């Protein structure tokens, strides 16, 4: 985990979304006494040391017991609190999957499940620690809103919205340092894709760390005479079907890009939408299978999850 900067962002200032998340949670907690943090021996790795110091009673560390962690958060919601469950992504969505289904989603409790260090953040630690199945697993639970902020501004906005949304939410809190891609004056709209660049030839729908790659790819494509629309799909579920269908109708094809397993993620959601309403050529970029070891940036490059990979896919669609 030495290299936490995406390879495509060299020379550009990058930010740690975990810091933005932790600062925002403390701001929220100062004005909203319902906010509590629940974690699993992950105070430090979730950047919650300052929160714990300021709100010692409102940080509940259950120890290394993820099923209990999610059940406890359901009980806290029953008692009128708004728990933010801060836990490494793979052990939150995978290890406590049935608790997330039965205790959070089906009970429709207002709990914000925060998958820390998502995707291949723990690259060298191997597939047991890669959180790439989270979109697929959470998408199968129809009540959960899935948020994947692309930069610190979206992370802050997502946390603020989640604190008052009164519904179950899963959000990724990225470890990868990312450039700012969201204009500061953007009004946060959950469930809506953010059009970062207009374009008429092809649409790139990206999420999370891949959004900045999509913008870089659009620059390269423009230099080759291809006009690429770029959508930042921060909300994986419910999907902004209107934006997807507009892209299907108005451009010749769609490339999706995500730091997640291909099966059941953003690309699947987009494909399910277009095939029902307006079939169009697609390329789905993601992780095809259990990944080998290597840094997160190495693994993204290994699977073509970078600007060059997006350019190649878009060019194929235009052929």
């Amino acid at each position, binding site marked *: 985990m030495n290299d936490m900067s995406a390879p495509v962002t060299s020379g550009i200032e990058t930010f740690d979304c975990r810091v933005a998340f932790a600062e925002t949670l403390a701001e929220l907690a100062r004005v909203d006494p319902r906010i509590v943090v629940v974690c699993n021996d992950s105070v430090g790795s979730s950047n919650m040391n300052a929160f714990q110091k300021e709100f010692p009673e409102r940080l*509940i560390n259950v120890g290394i017991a993820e099923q209990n962690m*999610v*059940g406890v958060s359901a*009980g806290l919601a029953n*008692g009128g*609190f708004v728990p933010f469950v801060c836990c490494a992504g793979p052990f939150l969505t995978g290890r406590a999957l*049935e*608790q997330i289904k*039965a205790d959070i989603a089906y009970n429709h409790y207002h709990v914000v499940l925060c998958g820390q260090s998502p995707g291949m953040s723990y690259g060298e630690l191997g597939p047991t620690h890669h959180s790439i199945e989270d979109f697929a697993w959470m998408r199968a639970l129809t009540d959960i809103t899935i948020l994947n902020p692309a930069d610190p501004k979206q992370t802050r906005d997502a946390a603020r919205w989640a604190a008052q949304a009164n519904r179950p939410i899963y959000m990724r809190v990225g470890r990868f340092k990312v450039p700012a891609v969201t204009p500061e004056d953007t009004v946060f709209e959950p469930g809506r894709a953010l059009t970062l660049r207009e374009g008429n030839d092809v649409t790139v729908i990206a999420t999370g760390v891949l959004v900045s790659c999509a913008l870089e790819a659009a620059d390269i494509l423009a230099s080759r005479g291809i006009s690429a629309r770029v959508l930042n799909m921060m909300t994986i579920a419910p999907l902004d079907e209107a934006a997807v269908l507009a892209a299907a109708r108005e451009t010749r094809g769609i490339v999706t890009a995500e730091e997640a397993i291909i099966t059941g993620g953003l690309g699947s959601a987009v494909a399910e939408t277009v095939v029902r309403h307006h079939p169009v050529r697609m390329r789905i970029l993601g992780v095809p299978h259990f990944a080998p070891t290597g840094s997160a940036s190495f693994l993204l490059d290994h699977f073509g999850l970078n600007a060059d990979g997006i350019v190649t896919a878009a060019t194929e669609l235009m052929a």
Partner: protein
Amino acid sequence: MSTALAQPGDTSSLEARAARLKEIAADIRVSIVNTIAGPRMGHIGGDFSVTDILVTLFFDIMRTRPADPEWAERDRFILSKGHCSAALYSVLATAGYFSPDLLSTFMAPLSVLNGHPNRRKVKGVEANTGPLGHGLPIGVGAAIAATISKSDYRTFVVLGDGELQEGSNWEAAMFAGHRKLSNLTAIVDRNRLQQGARTEDTNSLEPLGDKWRAFGWEVHEVDGHDHAALLAAFEAPRIDKPRFLIANTRKGKGVSFIEDRVEWHHKVPSPEQVLQAIEELRAQ
């Protein structure tokens, strides 16, 4: 029948309260028989073993407002052994959370009374349960919520004994002991039978009390069909620990041909057996 609920400041003797609960329990068992006879589905064995525990809690011990089920200061009740929803639904209907007429729709197509407790549609249900090992962690969270919001409501969780084979219970037990949650009471319906066989022949639980004591709980052991004993255990002076009540029960308690027989986990009585069961319950 919300008048069946205990009134605040009730100064009746323990014996009088127990006698009243016994009458209610007999009615609840008849209600359970009728509830599961319709769809010919349900878990009558466990429903009957847990009935006296539920009746004691809902008709005497717990602070509730059936007309205002989301009242913030209500005591919380979670039926972790969610397959015994017919017992819970019969208790809730009798306590006035919803009309007893609704019980006739149990497990009918599109009914709000599905086979496991339904929080989203049924007043008085705190948590959807059914998959085992979920109730105690939720109860621990509710108890912690009371602690940090400085509310004095209590949380009660009813567990099946077979259910204790699920590891999530032990995660929650360890944490509740660590947090010294004196506002939390877990009751195990110790009928010694699980779906397929006796608990002690499957994955033995004994010495059960010692295990919970080792996890930092105060342990009481009572006859789970003795309302006076249950009342005394629930009302024992609180110490700085969560409370674990081993309620020794008989699966199928109250009907001769069902009692303590493993095959009655989710067997449904025939129409003739329904009549016989009601006759036996009425005679008690």
